[in-house]
């Protein structure tokens, strides 16, 4: 693969013409074979046989699918503090290789992104070393301790696009209510990692017949549902925009549907692994199927797929959670929670959802573009004139075997290693520059 040697944002926006691809832009309901012209890093024009300006790069995308750049609103870049797992540099390169042109990074770094200096640091790293756009998510509470609000206004001013104690639910409902109220003026959602800590205590997997057989400590789906219900009631009370991270249960889907019907401002995301894997996978005791929330049952994956198709689920996010091997080998109940997802999401979803006809390609693209862009008010996610020159170009016929040893992420903790899939990213363009292309 080719990679820009210097960060994409250290240079002026590029000028590039993408010729002959099937252009798929859910934001304008466009699906036609066209050229795309990006000038100085911004979308200039779409149409047949566009002339290339002087000095423009020209890409032949015949047979490929040209989409607005994908946005992953839930990743862990681990910097500062946990650079042995991931950095802004490696995480954004993994994003580019996965077809993503923008990521939102969660606040559970060390130190926590609960104050402006950390947000500034992450954004500076992104500017100088990042391969894709980085939008930080600020902590809701100081130190993710669930005790006192972080300086949310200043975090918003510094560039945080949402607020979340992801990984650590705020158990104090009164404090969470205050967070929702306080952030109302910022137009940024509160993102809930919905998990009742008492119900989930000790749980290493989903509670059900599989956990009963395996003898592993387990947490019930109710641990998620109870918290989703609570947060919906608080959003209803405050009028805040609540976003449910990594929704994983049929029960939570039902709660979100009901709340939306009542007019509550609640959105949600789903991960690829919760869509395609179930707790049956835990029978191997492989720590790479351990994450929070845990893999659920077939009944849940069915409900998630349906909700993704009908729009109850707004977007797909990976919850990319890199861990070093030392954190993810050995005893299942002692291993860290989480898996990497940036480099597997698009291939797995194309192969397991789009190819069998469970989800249309245009809906998949919408959930990766307009979905996250609208709920976070991001400039990307569309090929309308003047939007960022970010493209995710897919080769839906490409056959590949997922090989974790070739990941650009610093970590390898994936349950998808060895999977043979059809379809995947082919080229990723950010700010008018090619940041990654398949070999």
């Amino acid at each position, binding site marked *: 693969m080719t990679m820009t040697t210097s960060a994409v944002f250290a240079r002026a926006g590029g000028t590039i013409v993408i010729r002959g691809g099937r252009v798929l832009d859910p934001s304008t309901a466009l699906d036609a074979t066209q050229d795309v012209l990006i000038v100085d890093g911004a979308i200039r024009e779409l149409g047949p046989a566009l002339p290339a300006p002087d000095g423009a790069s020209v890409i032949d995308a015949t047979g490929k699918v040209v989409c607005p750049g994908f946005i992953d609103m839930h990743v862990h870049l681990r910097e500062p503090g946990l650079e042995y797992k991931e950095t802004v540099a490696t995480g954004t390169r993994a994003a580019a290789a996965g077809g993503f042109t923008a990521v939102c990074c969660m606040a559970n770094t060390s130190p926590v992104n609960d104050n402006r200096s950390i947000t500034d640091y992450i954004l500076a790293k992104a500017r100088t070393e990042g391969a894709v756009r980085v939008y930080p998510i600020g902590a809701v509470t100081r130190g993710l301790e669930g005790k006192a609000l972080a300086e949310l206004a200043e975090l918003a001013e510094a560039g945080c696009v949402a607020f979340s104690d992801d990984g650590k639910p705020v158990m104090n409902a009164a404090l969470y209510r205050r967070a929702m109220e306080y952030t109302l003026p910022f137009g940024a959602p509160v993102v809930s990692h919905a998990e009742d800590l008492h119900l989930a205590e000790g749980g290493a997997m989903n509670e059900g017949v599989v*956990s*009963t*057989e*395996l*003898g*592993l400590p387990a947490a019930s789906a109710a641990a998620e549902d109870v918290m989703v219900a609570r947060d919906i009631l608080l959003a209803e009370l405050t009028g805040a925009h609540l976003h449910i991270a990594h929704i994983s249960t049929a029960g939570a889907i039902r709660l979100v549907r009901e709340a939306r019907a009542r007019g509550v401002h609640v959105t949600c995301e789903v991960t690829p692994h919760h869509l395609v894997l179930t707790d049956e996978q835990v029978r191997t*005791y492989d720590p790479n199927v351990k994450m929070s929330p845990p893999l659920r049952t077939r009944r849940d994956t069915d409900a998630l797929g349906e909700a993704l198709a009908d729009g109850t689920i707004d977007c797909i996010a990976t919850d990319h959670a890199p861990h070093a091997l030392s954190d993810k*080998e050995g*005893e299942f109940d002692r291993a860290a929670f989480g898996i990497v997802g940036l480099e597997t999401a698009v291939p797995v979803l194309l192969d397991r959802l789009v190819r069998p006809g469970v989800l249309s390609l245009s809906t998949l693209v919408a959930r990766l573009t307009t979905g996250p862009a609208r709920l976070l008010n991001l400039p990307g996610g569309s090929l309308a004139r003047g939007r960022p020159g970010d493209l995710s170009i897919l080769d839906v016929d490409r056959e590949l075997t997922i090989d974790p040893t070739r990941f650009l992420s610093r970590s390898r903790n994936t349950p998808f290693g060895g999977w043979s899939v059809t379809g995947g990213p082919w080229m990723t363009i950010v700010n008018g520059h090619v940041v990654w292309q398949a070999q």
Partner: protein
Amino acid sequence: MAWTRKDLLTMRELDPGEIQLLVETAASLEEIATRDIKKVPALRGKTVVNLFYEASTRTRTSFEIAGKWLSADVINFSASGSSAGKGESFLDTAKTIGAMSPDVVVVRHSSAGAAALLARELTCSIVNAGDGAHEHPTQALLDLLTIREKKGHFDGLSVAIVGDVAHSRVARSNIHAMKKLGMTVTVAGPPTLIPPNVQELGVKVSYRLDDAIRDVDVIMMLRLQHERMAGGLIPSLREYSRYWGLTLDKLSAQARPDVLIMHPGPVNRGVELSPEVADGPYSVILDQVTKGVAVRMGVLFLLAGSRGGSPA
């Protein structure tokens, strides 16, 4: 039928023929315990390592005796007083021991799946001597051997497994094994100690001790761990013992006259079993311990002995 597996990890994965083979092999070795010279050369030159990360009296001792009676060299490792105490990971310790070319590693660990992990990582045979709340196959085998001696058969027998089923590896191994051998299994206890969806394993569930023990052939009482109270699963030992402790009164009111009372040990006297029951005529608790040595000899022989040979 010949034994073909490298490891003994679960009862769930065995077929009925394999279980019968394990039981028959153990039965054929029982008489060694009655000899004056308790030693046969079956595993001479073989090395068995007991890798115990959890406290154990009967399991570790009986594996050690079993190995020695078969002439294997038996090495005991316990987590305290080893590099595990210096922070070495389970996997590293296991690989280190694996590098010394043992023939069999017997592992006890508090994490479910620990034995399967070793089976993947080491080339020698692994015996699961208890992994978390998952399985404890040699316990199920010694229970079966005890039942067979007392009842003469398995098919059609009914068993009640009573107590903290949720956290019991003994219960899980026995449920799988007994179902495969045609027995009817009821699990009983307060609902907080019954694992979710356990009916899907093919057992009945009862929340009343009297109903569970009525007319069954075997009552298997489980140990109540004291930490279950801290977890809020039961209000008090006193209340547990009042409703779930097996006493002579309850037994004579409900149980068959030829019922067997089993317990994997160690017994909390006065909690799940009254002393009169534990030491009474129905109790086969010490028979279970005796059978434990035979079962472990059988397992070690099948895994490490010369293929097709006779052990004794």
